């Protein structure tokens, strides 16, 4: 009974905090006010002040966490709705997503090896361009640390959202297809929400490439690990 009460309190706290942070973000729409980021920081601060462990938080957190599986399944819907866009530009979209996946994973591994990063950290870096709920599963499948992967995924998203417009200008990436794929395959959902500042086509291409990246990337991770003999 007490366990149940604790769970309710944690769920209410998390949902309430998120809704508040979301309002803050809608008001100022500044990349670093991303609700996931601010809510997480606020909750960590609360837990630290009350000296509660992550395991205690997860008594209730697990209830929310359970919804991640069906949420990934739900990503089939936007992909289904945009099937015409996908089919009309199949080669550039699938080709671009594959380039993004290969470059995203391999450049992460190579940079990490240059800086002498340890293996379990490299394994946590590999899925960073994939949307978080899938990246967590890829990380644990290949032997990485999921909680580190989440931070890397967030950072990859923020990097793309903040630097994307500059990169497009410097490297003359002008077509909605090019921009959408750059956002979706490097910066997943955070990039896709930044794409909303461009045009409709950029948003749908970004959302399609984010989902394709997740589908293809979920098996690609294993391949990269095998390739680098890790």
């Amino acid at each position: 009974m007490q366990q149940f009460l604790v769970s309710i309190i944690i769920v209410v706290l998390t949902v309430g905090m998120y809704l508040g942070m979301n309002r803050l973000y809608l008001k100022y729409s500044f990349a670093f006010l991303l609700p996931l980021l601010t809510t997480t920081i606020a909750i960590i601060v609360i837990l630290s002040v009350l000296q509660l462990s992550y395991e205690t938080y997860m008594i209730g957190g697990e209830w929310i966490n359970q919804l991640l599986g069906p949420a990934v399944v739900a990503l089939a819907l936007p992909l289904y709705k945009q099937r015409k866009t996908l089919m009309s530009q199949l080669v550039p979209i699938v080709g671009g997503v594959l380039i993004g996946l290969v470059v995203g994973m391999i450049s992460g591994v190579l940079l990490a090896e240059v800086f002498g990063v340890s293996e379990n950290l490299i394994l946590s870096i590999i899925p960073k361009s994939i949307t978080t709920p899938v990246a967590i599963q890829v990380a644990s499948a290949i032997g990485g640390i999921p909680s580190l992967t989440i931070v890397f995924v967030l950072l990859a998203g923020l990097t793309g959202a903040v630097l994307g417009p500059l990169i497009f200008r410097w490297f003359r990436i002008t077509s909605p297809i090019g921009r959408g794929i750059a956002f979706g395959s490097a910066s997943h959902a955070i990039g896709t929400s930044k794409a909303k500042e461009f045009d409709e086509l950029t948003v749908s291409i970004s959302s399609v490439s984010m989902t394709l990246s997740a589908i293809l990337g979920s098996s690609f991770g294993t391949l990269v690990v095998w390739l680098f003999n890790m």
Partner: protein
Amino acid sequence: MMYTTKVIFQIGILFGLFYIGSYLKDLLHIPLPGSIIGLLLLLILLLLKILPIHWVQDGANVLITFLPLLLVPATVSVMNEPSLFSGKGVILFGIIIGSTIVTMISAGWGSQHLERIAKKRKENVRCNNSLSQ
């Protein structure tokens, strides 16, 4: 109230697909996460018109809209990794930022080129057709 019931029911369907996906993964040893197999199953059901889109649409929209909220508990786990915010963390963050920039440039630039090639090919086909007529 009607809407809430509908959303809960539809999330139930998505849950079902997730469990079937996870079951198939274990049964057939598919090297994909159960949720991705569920996603592919849903896509097939929608494409074959076995499952009408309005059976899952509202539930799926709610889950996708609140995806950042659903990710909060998993993200809070970073509190167990304090080493990330030390000196070593700065290098890791640099690697992620660098790799993301390279990824954006190559994916954007590459797909823009593929798009041009595809367009040119279409035009060539059109030209050849008009010549032969």
